[in-house]
């Protein structure tokens, strides 16, 4: 068996910053990223939905993912990470895109069993940015849109 086939599979993550903290989602679940310019607030929208933006003629709901995770709310400036879904349902407002990394299973750090975790947080990885929370896109969409 060659060394190449022995190498463990890696997962590519999109890292983004929320204030001082970093979080990540699977890169394959990211459709696009664009800088937020204009957002229209929605009357009666659920908590943490900042509003909608026009994404090529279809409206995309923008989640204040920082507020959703219990961090200080976003300042409505930053970048929108459009989650891959057909049709697009949700964009995450993040402060900035930090990196794209490929990680193996060794980088994962078990979640503390004794602490409560934000919804959709499924793992942590140890990177140069520190401990980075990994969010499950499907759980995130489910939590927000239920």
């Amino acid at each position, binding site marked *: 068996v060659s060394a190449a086939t022995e190498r463990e599979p890696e997962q590519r993550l999109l890292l983004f910053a929320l204030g001082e903290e970093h979080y990540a989602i699977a890169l394959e679940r990211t459709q696009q990223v664009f800088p937020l310019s204009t957002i*229209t607030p*929605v009357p*009666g929208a659920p908590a943490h939905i900042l509003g909608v933006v026009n994404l090529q003629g*279809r*409206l995309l*709901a923008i989640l204040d993912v920082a507020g959703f995770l219990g961090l200080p709310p976003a300042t409505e400036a930053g970048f929108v990470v459009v989650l891959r879904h057909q049709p697009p349902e949700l964009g995450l407002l993040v402060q900035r895109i930090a990196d794209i990394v490929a990680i193996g299973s060794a980088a994962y750090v078990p979640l503390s069993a004794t602490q409560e975790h934000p919804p959709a947080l499924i793992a942590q990885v140890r990177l140069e940015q520190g401990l980075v929370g990994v969010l499950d896109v499907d759980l995130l969409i489910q939590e927000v849109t239920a």
Partner: protein
Amino acid sequence: VSAAATTPWLTFWLGRYPLASPTAAVQRVIPSSAIVPGDTADAPGQLGWLPSAEGDIPVVDGGALWSTATPEPRQQLLLLRGIPLAVAVTRVGEVMLAGTEAQRALPTWLAHRLARQGITQVLELGTLWFVIHWPGAPLSRWMAAPRLHPCPHDQGDKHG
């Protein structure tokens, strides 16, 4: 889009929320200085009354239809057509013609939520406007809420 396919929409603001109403649903736009304070204790969101020849008409803060409050100042009132109610809004914008080409699709889950709030369409007319149809769900709920107090000018007649 032919002219026949277009509808006039009255745009207005409730705080920072951009809304639109079919123009046909609004009888008049009146300065909020016309509000007469009165007994509104039993009616959350009611700001007072609008005297009219047909009797006093309750004035509701538009934001109260979504269980919130419109920040002051509320500059104008939409006197609805066919419904004895005036809705206080931050300010009225423009009347704009638009047809189906101006409609924008919301994510399904959000469209369902907004439909329950009486908002069934979004129009892009320069910017986005959330269309509320009167009487929509929130207005119907508000009007259906029990309120026992009479109009202030009728109190002497109706009490006792």
